[in-house]
C-alpha cells in the first residue's frame, strides 16, 4: 500500500473519530502524512461509563517478551488517541490504558490484530470504556468540596478564603498523599490550572473596572430621584419605576453594586414620604435578582454559564430576556399586592420642603462629563457583546477593551479604579474552579450526572423542570456561584445525553433557577445581604423571617413564569 494512500486512510479515520466528538482532535493539526506513514498505527477512543470522552489517559503498547512498553499515546480532549508503533515492534500482545481515578484497562490484542499490523493497515479499536476507581482521592476531593460549600453557606469565613483553603488541601493531598499511597493523587498543579476559566475571570475583572468608573457618577441616585419626581407622589407608580430602574441597572452591572447605590437613596425617598422603606427596598432587590439574568454580564452565574456552554450575549437576550420580562411583570404585580397598604396612597403633600431639598441635593450627577463618556463606551461595549460573536470576540476581551477605553478616555485616578477591582472575588473564582475541577477529575460529577440521568431518563421536560426548581430552592439556601460552577459539567453531560437538550435549554434552566432562587431567603443572594446591611444601619433591620415571608412567594411566582417561557421557547417554539 502506497504511503500516501495509507496516510489518506488514516487521516479519514481520524477525521471520522474527531467528527463524532464536538471537540476537534489536536493531533489532526499536528500530524503530517510523513509522520503517520512511517509507523504502524492503532487508533481508538477512550470514554467513561457515561459515554463521555476521557482525556489524558495514557495508552501503552507492550510486547509478550518483556512486558515493557514499546509505544505510548495520550488521549485527547475528545478521548481519541493514535498509537504510533515502530515498524519492528509487531509482536504486541497488550494495550494498557492508565488514567488516574479510573481502573487500569488491559486490552489483549488477538492474532487478527497482530496480523493486521503486519500488513501495515491501521488498526481501529472499538471505543474503550474506563470504569471509575472510587479511591481515597475521590473521597478527599468530595469531602473538601462539601466542606468548602458548607463553610461558604455558613458564612463564617470569606468565600475566597474557604475556596483557597480547599484548593490548598487538594494540592497538599495530591502531592504529599502519594508518598504513602498513590490512591491519594487527585491532580497535578498544571492539570488543576486547566480547570480555571480565564474568560470568566477576565470578564468579571473588566466589568468591575467599568462599574468602578460608572458608580462614581451619581447616575443611580439621580435616576431614583427622577423616579420620585415622575411618580408625583403616586407610590405604586414610584415603586414600579424604581423596580424598572433597578432591574435594568442589574442587567448590565452586578447586583451588589446596584443595590449599594440604590438602597440609601431609596430609604431617603421612603422616609421623605413617611412610609416604611421595606415597601420600596424589598421589591427593588427582588427586581435586581430577577432582571439580572437577562444578559450575559448581569450575574456571575450567567458569566459562568455563558463561558462554559458558549452561550453568547445575544443568546441570552433571545432565549431568556422575554421570560425575564414575563417574570418581572409578575413580580411587579405581586409587589403592588403585597405592599398595597403602603402604596395606594397619594403622599405628595406629606414631604417637607427641607427634606425634598436634601433629597435633591443627594441625587445630583457628580461628574456629567465622565458619565457621558462612560455612556458612549458602555454603548460600544453592548454592541461588541451583541455582534462580537460573529468575529469570535470573547466577552472577556470586550470587557477588558471597554475598561481600557474608559480609563484612557475618562482619565480617572487609575490607582483608585484598580483598587475597585474586587481581587478577593477573583481569587475566589480561581480557587473555586480548582475545587470544582477536583470533583470533575475524581469522577464525582459523573456520579451526580449519572444519578440525575437515571432519574430523568430521556425526558427533557422533566429535566428542565427538575433543574429549574431544584436550582431555585437550593440557591435560596446555598451560595449560587459554587453551586452553578459545580453543576455546569453535570449539565454538560445531561445536554449531551438527553435528546433535544442540545439547544442548551438546561443551561438556561440553570440560569433561571440559580439567580431567581436568590429571592427565596435573605442569604440567597449577596444583593439581599448588602441591602439588609444598609437598611439595618439606617435603623430598619430586615429579619430573616420577614424576607422569607415576602421572598418565597416572589420566588415561586417569578420562577413559575420564567419556567413557562423556557418551556414555550424550547419545547413549543422549536
Amino acid at each position, binding site marked *: 500500500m502506497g504511503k500516501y494512500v495509507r496516510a489518506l486512510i488514516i487521516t479519514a479515520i481520524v477525521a471520522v473519530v474527531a467528527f463524532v466528538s464536538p471537540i476537534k482532535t489536536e493531533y489532526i493539526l499536528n500530524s503530517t502524512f510523513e509522520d503517520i506513514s512511517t509507523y504502524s498505527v492503532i487508533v481508538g477512543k477512550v470514554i467513561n461509563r457515561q459515554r463521555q470522552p476521557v482525556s489524558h489517559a495514557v495508552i501503552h503498547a507492550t510486547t509478550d517478551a518483556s512486558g515493557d512498553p514499546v509505544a505510548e499515546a495520550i488521549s485527547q480532549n475528545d478521548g481519541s488517541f493514535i498509537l504510533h508503533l515502530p515498524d519492528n515492534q509487531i509482536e504486541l500482545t497488550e494495550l494498557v490504558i492508565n488514567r488516574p481515578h479510573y481502573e487500569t484497562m488491559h486490552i489483549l490484542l488477538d492474532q487478527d490484530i497482530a496480523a493486521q499490523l503486519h500488513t501495515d493497515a491501521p488498526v481501529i479499536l472499538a471505543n474503550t470504556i474506563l470504569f471509575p476507581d472510587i479511591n481515597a482521592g475521590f473521597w478527599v476531593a468530595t469531602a473538601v468540596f462539601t466542606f468548602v460549600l458548607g463553610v461558604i453557606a455558613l458564612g463564617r469565613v470569606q468565600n475566597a478564603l474557604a475556596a483557597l483553603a480547599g484548593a490548598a488541601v487538594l494540592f497538599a493531598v495530591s502531592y504529599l498523599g502519594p508518598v504513602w499511597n498513590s490512591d491519594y493523587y487527585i491532580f497535578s498543579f498544571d492539570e488543576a490550572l486547566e480547570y480555571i476559566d480565564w474568560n470568566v475571570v477576565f470578564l468579571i475583572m473588566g466589568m468591575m473596572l467599568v462599574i468602578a468608573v460608572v458608580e462614581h457618577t451619581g447616575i443611580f441616585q439621580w435616576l431614583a430621584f427622577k423616579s420620585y419626581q415622575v411618580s408625583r407622589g403616586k407610590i405604586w407608580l414610584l415603586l414600579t419605576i424604581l423596580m424598572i430602574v433597578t432591574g435594568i441597572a442589574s442587567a448590565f452591572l452586578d447586583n451588589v453594586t446596584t443595590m*449599594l447605590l440604590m438602597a440609601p437613596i431609596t430609604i431617603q425617598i421612603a422616609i421623605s414620604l413617611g412610609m416604611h422603606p421595606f415597601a420600596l427596598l424589598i421589591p427593588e432587590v427582588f427586581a435586581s435578582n430577577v432582571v439580572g439574568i437577562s444578559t450575559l454580564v448581569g450575574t456571575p452565574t450567567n458569566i459562568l454559564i455563558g463561558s462554559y456552554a458558549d452561550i453568547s450575549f445575544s443568546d441570552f437576550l433571545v432565549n431568556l430576556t422575554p421570560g425575564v420580562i414575563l417574570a418581572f411583570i409578575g413580580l411587579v404585580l405581586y409587589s403592588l399586592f403585597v405592599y398595597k397598604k403602603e402604596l395606594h396612597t397619594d403622599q405628595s403633600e406629606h414631604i417637607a420642603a427641607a*427634606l425634598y431639598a436634601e433629597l435633591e441635593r443627594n441625587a445630583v450627577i457628580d461628574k456629567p462629563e465622565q458619565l457621558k463618556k462612560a455612556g458612549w463606551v458602555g454603548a460600544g461595549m453592548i454592541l461588541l457583546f451583541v455582534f462580537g460573536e460573529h468575529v469570535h470576540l470573547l466577552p472577556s476581551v470586550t470587557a477588558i477593551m471597554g475598561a481600557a477605553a474608559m480609563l484612557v478616555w475618562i482619565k480617572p485616578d487609575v490607582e*483608585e479604579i484598580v483598587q475597585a477591582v474586587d481581587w*478577593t472575588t477573583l481569587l475566589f473564582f480561581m480557587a473555586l474552579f480548582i475545587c470544582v475541577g477536583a470533583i470533575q477529575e475524581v469522577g464525582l460529577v459523573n456520579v451526580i450526572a449519572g444519578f440525575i440521568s437515571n432519574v430523568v431518563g430521556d425526558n427533557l421536560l422533566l429535566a428542565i423542570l427538575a433543574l429549574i426548581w431544584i436550582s431555585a430552592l437550593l440557591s435560596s439556601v446555598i451560595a449560587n456561584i459554587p453551586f452553578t460552577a459545580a453543576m455546569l459539567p453535570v449539565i454538560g453531560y445531561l445536554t449531551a445525553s438527553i435528546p433535544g437538550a442540545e439547544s442548551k435549554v438546561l443551561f438556561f434552566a440553570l440560569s433561571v433557577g440559580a439567580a431567581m432562587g436568590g429571592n427565596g431567603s435573605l442569604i440567597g443572594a449577596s444583593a439581599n445581604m448588602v441591602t439588609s446591611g444598609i437598611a439595618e444601619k439606617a435603623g430598619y433591620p430586615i429579619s430573616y423571617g420577614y424576607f422569607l415571608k415576602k421572598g418565597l412567594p416572589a420566588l415561586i411566582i417569578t420562577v413559575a413564569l420564567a419556567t413557562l417561557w423556557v418551556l414555550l421557547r424550547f419545547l413549543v417554539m422549536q
Partner: protein
Amino acid sequence: MSGIVCPIRGGQESRPTIERAITYAKERDLPVYFLFVIDLGGIGLTEVPAHKKIVSHEMANLASFVLLTATIEADRDGVRAEGFTRFGHLADEIIALVEEKAADAVVLGQTKTGKAREAKTNLLVSKITDSTQAEIILA
C-alpha cells in the same frame, strides 16, 4: 448646661429616643445635638476600598437625611437642634461629641429588651460615664 447629645439611627426604634431628647431639651431650654454614627462593619461585601468609599458617601447622605428629619421635628417643637454625622465606633463618637459640645446629658435609645441588649447598653453607658461627666438618660 450646654446641650444634649442624642445618637440616633432612624426607623421606628429611634422615635422614642428623639421624642425623649426633644422633651428633655424643651424642659431645660437646651439645644439637641443629634448624632448619626456610621460604622461600615456588617454591611457585607464592602471590603473593597472603592466600595467602602462609595458606601461611605451614600451612607453619609443617608445619615444627613435622617438627621434632618430629627432636626425638623425639634424645630417644630421650638427646640434648637443640629445634626452631626461621624464615622467610627458609637461609644467613641458619642464621647467625642459630648466633649466637643461640653454637653451635660446623653439620651440613649434602648432598641430591644433582652439580656444581650441590656448588657450592650450597660457597656455603652459605663464607657460614656467613665470618660465624661454627662448624665445618661435612657429613653
